[in-house]
């Protein structure tokens, strides 16, 4: 705003220079530093959520490859931690059986990995390129990184050593397909949770995306001014519904209703969760899309109408393409909302980590896992750290989504309206 009145700016600055006022100086400094705290909060959130998940990286060395893929710490840190690796002391014990165990194990663990990955791909590539990219470093990263690291054979031995020992804290438990955090041999199969989360997200977006965008098109292109003034606040009122209320509604009403209609077995499942989350995502997608559509300059519409296009042709072939970046951002933020939604997932998805593509089976999402299990874990346990690790994945993912929405869209829009 200040730039609009450069004179004012100069005036204040000069007067400040001429006559130093302590209160003035203090006010500016205090206000600025409080504002900068919001940057600090973001950093703190990441640091503290990630810090609590660090213990899991100390158990298998290949976990470090994972750390590097995500947090990218300098490689100098690695040799240091090698020394203190507790598993290295185990090596001599296991050496005898090692070559065999090593080769025996490798196909076992790796063999199953590409399969699950491929299992995953068709589901994910279709509509969610972003999540997939997020996924790749996690799963492929380890496999690829290992042969290239010089000490890879050592790493193998360590992994095998700890595997033979039957310790619950090995990295390989992350790539099992089961999520059994509380047992004698806990397994933290994130893949089952990932599939659950993706399933719910895809269902929710398939429902919420088209409905919200069509509604936004109607509101901004076809509705009369008075209708617009009624429709917008009503739909935005849906955003004021607490997610626990939507979750409760899905649990009590929707679940029974849809079971009667479709007659599937498990009452709470991915589909119910998806429908309920669509309700939470619709207001977000609607509001941002509507803003994007309304921001298209009037000249676009007028030019199109003047050329003889009808109203709907203008809306779908002129305004909609022009607003694509904004709508894309709306969808991204919708995905972010659904991906991290906790209460609806907790209440309406059934919370069973099953590995299946059937939308009518119970699923367990990342966020719901944190929400339901954190209270039962003990501080410092592997389970506790794993939950925080899931939390940092969610944080990185939502951060990335927001960054893409912000920078990609802004760049596109500026190019569109000014660059031409």
């Amino acid at each position: 705003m200040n730039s609009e009145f450069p004179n004012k700016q100069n005036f204040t600055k000069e007067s400040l220079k001429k006559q130093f006022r302590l209160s003035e100086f203090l006010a500016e400094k205090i206000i600025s530093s409080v504002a900068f705290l919001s940057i600090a909060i973001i950093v703190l959130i990441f640091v503290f959520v990630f810090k609590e998940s660090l213990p899991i990286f100390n158990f298998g060395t290949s976990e470090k490859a994972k750390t590097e893929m995500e947090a990218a710490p300098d490689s100098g840190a690695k040799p240091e931690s090698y020394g203190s690796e507790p598993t290295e002391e185990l090596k001599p014990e296991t050496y005898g059986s090692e070559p065999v165990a090593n080769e025996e194990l490798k196909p076992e663990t790796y063999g199953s990995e590409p399969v699950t990955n491929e299992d995953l791909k068709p589901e994910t590539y279709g509509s969610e390129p972003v999540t997939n990219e997020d996924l790749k470093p996690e799963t492929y990263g380890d496999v690829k990184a290992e042969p290239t690291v010089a000490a890879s054979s050592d790493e193998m031995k360590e992994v095998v050593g700890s595997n033979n020992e039957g310790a619950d804290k090995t990295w390989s438990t992350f790539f099992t397909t089961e999520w059994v955090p509380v047992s004698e041999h806990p397994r933290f199969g994130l893949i089952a949770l990932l599939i659950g989360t993706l399933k719910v997200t895809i269902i929710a977006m398939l429902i919420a995306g088209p409905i919200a965008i069509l509604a936004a098109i109607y509101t901004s292109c076809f509705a009369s001014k008075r209708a617009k003034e009624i429709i917008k606040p009503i739909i935005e009122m849906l955003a004021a519904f607490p997610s626990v209320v939507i979750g409760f509604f899905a649990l009590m009403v929707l679940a029974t209703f849809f079971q009667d209609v479709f007659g599937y077995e498990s009452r709470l499942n991915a589909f119910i969760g998806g429908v309920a989350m669509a309700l939470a995502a619709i207001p977000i997608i609607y509001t941002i899309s509507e803003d994007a559509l309304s921001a298209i300059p009037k000249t676009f519409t007028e030019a199109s109408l003047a050329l003889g296009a009808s109203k709907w042709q203008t809306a779908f072939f002129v305004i909609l393409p022009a607003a694509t970046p904004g709508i894309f951002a709306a969808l991204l933020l919708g995905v972010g909302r659904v991906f991290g939604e906790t209460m609806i997932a907790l209440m309406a998805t059934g919370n069973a980590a099953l590995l299946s593509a059937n939308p009518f089976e119970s699923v367990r999402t990342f966020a719901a896992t944190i929400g339901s299990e954190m209270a039962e874990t003990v501080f410092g346990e592997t389970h506790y750290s794993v939950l925080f690790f899931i939390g940092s994945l969610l944080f990185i993912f939502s951060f990335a989504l927001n960054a893409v929405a912000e920078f990609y869209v802004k760049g596109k829009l500026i190019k569109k309206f000014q660059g031409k």
Partner: protein
Amino acid sequence: MNTVINETENHFFSNKKKGVDVKGKFIIGITQIAVLLIIAVLFIILGIIIYEGREKFSWEFISSFPTNGMTEGGIFPALIGTFILVIVMSIAAVPFGTITAIYLTEYAKENSKIAAAVRFSIRTLAVVPSIIFGLFGLGFFIQFVGGGIDKTFNAGQLHWGQPNILWASLTMALLTLPVIIVSVEEALKTIPRELREASLALGATKWQTIKNVVLPGSISGIMTGTILAVSRGAGEVAPILFTGAAYYLATLPESLSDQFMNLGYHIYIMSTQSSDVEKTMPIQFATTLVLLILTLSLNLVAVIIRSRIRRRAK
């Protein structure tokens, strides 16, 4: 301008291409159905919750404690817990949010990288899943800050290093911060520049101008932000799951280091972990109704104040 467009269009349709009109009507109809669908679903949710919750909804329900292992009685402690939560949250979040908004509108220079970073952080804060705030509250407030206080002042005795109202409120304050900042910023921008210029021309300094001219003019914006934040904070459950909400308490919380009951959390546990879900169904619906009335009416008030601000801006 609109009338001109409509006339050309009508002329266009009436002369030629009647088929296009049908197709167009069909397509516009689909978009219309999408709008009606959303509105219908919204009112269905509202209707069912009001219908199912009405029989149990009474003054007695609101003002009495749960009894008989939470299968009977009211929701008084949950309501009070929610009130305390949002009050402490507002005390923390409103000054912080207002000051940040003042920085962004009054002090930040255009094209300043730092201001852009602040804006980006706020927007990120708005999209971070609420459960992450819960994790942060647990890792930072309870274990780091609370644990640190216990170590230095209480000789390691666990007092602040466990879930309580204060940590839950501060966690919630972080979550609602973007709501306040956006509202206050919007209100600050509606203060006409003539007012600021007049104040500066009279010899007031920048801080004096902000304090005596800009801030009093944007009180309604701060109000809107606070109300919206309270509405959001009252409804969120994920951040307080492990930072302070309690399953059941026989007494009201007495200090900031006590745990508390919360409306949203009450709904969650009653509907998923209650000993008798069928029997407590009316209580659950009535609790949901109370929460919904609370959040929606607060939102309505905020929308009304906001539309007044916008009218003033025009």
